[in-house]
């Protein structure tokens, strides 16, 4: 059994999913909004206090109400505003000035939280490539798979592409190139060469594992604990390898072991 790990003591990077409340505006009229919010606040009491909120402007075609005012309204609920969806270009400065994140439209309900995308093309990839691959079930691509279903990708995942299997396992039939990013809430199974970054248990499942028949990964991570390989040790390179999280001696580290014990 091979143990390859290096301790990072000062911090840990973990992908997490936090519930966020979306305030989707359907009116830009300040007086109407103020009255409605006042009614809702007295109704809600303290139940929303301390929660994170995202302001969704994407349904508004005409001018949105002033953001500073809107943020103050959201705070009346006891909510902490963290981002804005559907920002128009001219508002971008104001949003950043308030310390809020500019979130892409359509990110509201379908995708609660996701690790931030690096650039536009990468952000678009998961949905698009999920469509490009032949669907497992003969349903149109617009039908979202049920939560917990595994995702099967039958073409190579290319450099710059990011695939996220939400709530389930990710099965790669044709491998993944260097520079690709493979994320699953469950396990990752790779039947071709695994050359990208593989992150299993992305929502914190410490029992998630990565199985690869041809292990050449740049980085593996389980439940946020990761191990990067600048140079792959000869005893794992190109071998059938399983990566799991070892928490035995009080601290977590990635454990690489042969997939088939012989």
């Amino acid at each position: 059994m091979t143990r390859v790990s290096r301790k990072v003591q000062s911090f840990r990077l973990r992908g997490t999913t936090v519930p966020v409340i979306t305030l989707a505006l359907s009116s830009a009229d300040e007086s109407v909004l103020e009255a409605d919010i006042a009614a809702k606040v007295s109704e809600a009491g303290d139940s929303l206090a301390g929660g994170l909120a995202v302001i969704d402007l994407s349904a508004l075609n005409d001018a949105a109400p002033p953001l500073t005012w809107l943020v103050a309204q959201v705070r009346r609920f006891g909510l902490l505003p963290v981002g804005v969806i559907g920002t128009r270009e001219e508002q971008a400065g104001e949003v950043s000035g308030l310390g809020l994140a500019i979130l892409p439209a359509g990110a509201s309900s379908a995708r609660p939280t996701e690790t931030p995308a690096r650039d536009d093309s990468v952000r678009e990839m998961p949905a698009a490539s999920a469509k490009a691959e032949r669907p497992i079930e003969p349903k149109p691509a617009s039908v979202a798979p049920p939560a917990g279903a595994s995702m099967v990708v039958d073409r190579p995942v290319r450099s710059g592409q990011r695939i996220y299997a939400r709530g389930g396992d990710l099965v790669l039939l044709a491998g993944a190139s260097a520079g690709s990013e493979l994320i699953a809430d469950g396990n990752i199974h790779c039947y071709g060469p695994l050359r990208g970054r593989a992150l299993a248990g992305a929502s914190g499942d410490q029992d998630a594992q990565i199985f690869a028949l041809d292990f050449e990964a740049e980085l593996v991570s389980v439940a946020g604990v990761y191990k990067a390989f600048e140079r792959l040790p000869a005893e794992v390179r190109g071998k059938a390898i399983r990566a799991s999280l070892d928490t035995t001696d009080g601290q977590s580290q990635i454990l690489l072991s042969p997939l088939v014990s012989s």
Partner: protein
Amino acid sequence: MNETRIVVVTSGKGGVGKTTTSASFASGLALRGHKTAVVDFDVGLRNLDLIMGCERRVVYDFVNVINEEASLTQALIKDKHSENLFVLPASQTRDKDALKEEGVERILNELRQMGFKYVVCDSPAGIEHGAIMALTFADEAIIVTNPEVSSVRDSDRILGILQAKSRRAKEGREPVKEHLLLTRYSPKRVETGEMLSHDDVRELLRIPLLGVIPESEAVLHASNQGQPAIHMQDQPVAEAYKDVVARFLGEEVPLRFTTTEKRGLLQRLFGGK
């Protein structure tokens, strides 16, 4: 009427031989009797017309046709070597944003109606708008790659973009057919380990190999003379491009020019040079 096939020649990385390949590949298809158009998507840089040797005949260009300032027939330039080949040059005075998706689609449809069997789209380098426009409507893609790590990585990236942004992918149709073309291949440097071998590259990219074009000074001479490399007499590069066209058309042709020439036993015994 035969179905038109749109073939994008792309790479991600610049300077790998996309335009050289577009010119020779389109010429090769025309030499085989197929009505072919080659379209320069590198708006703002415009090289294809130079390599095709028709730069002095450019009056109207791709962007003029998109903006309906000229008709497609006015802008298409007939090749000097072949009756079957037409060049649609790029504009040098616009930038790539002038390539509107609806405009590109309209022109490709017009080429279809004109009975072109193949439309070869010469993509600009990079992964920005111009390159995306060149690959959006593709049925097949020739991924031009040099046998070195950074070129392979960029090719991998463009393959991902092809999977995500092409119309075929977006509409859930059969994916774009991918072909690997290795250019500037030096068997000698592969042997000394300075260059990746074609097997290495094929293993990294995992797409079928369409051909290997040897590194050659002759390509530069051909470009300077405004003549696609495929027309040169007795040059390995020309032969290799002819093989590529044959394989593309479904013929089985063994790989050539991928090994250093071994001197025979007799040559060595008798000191032949």
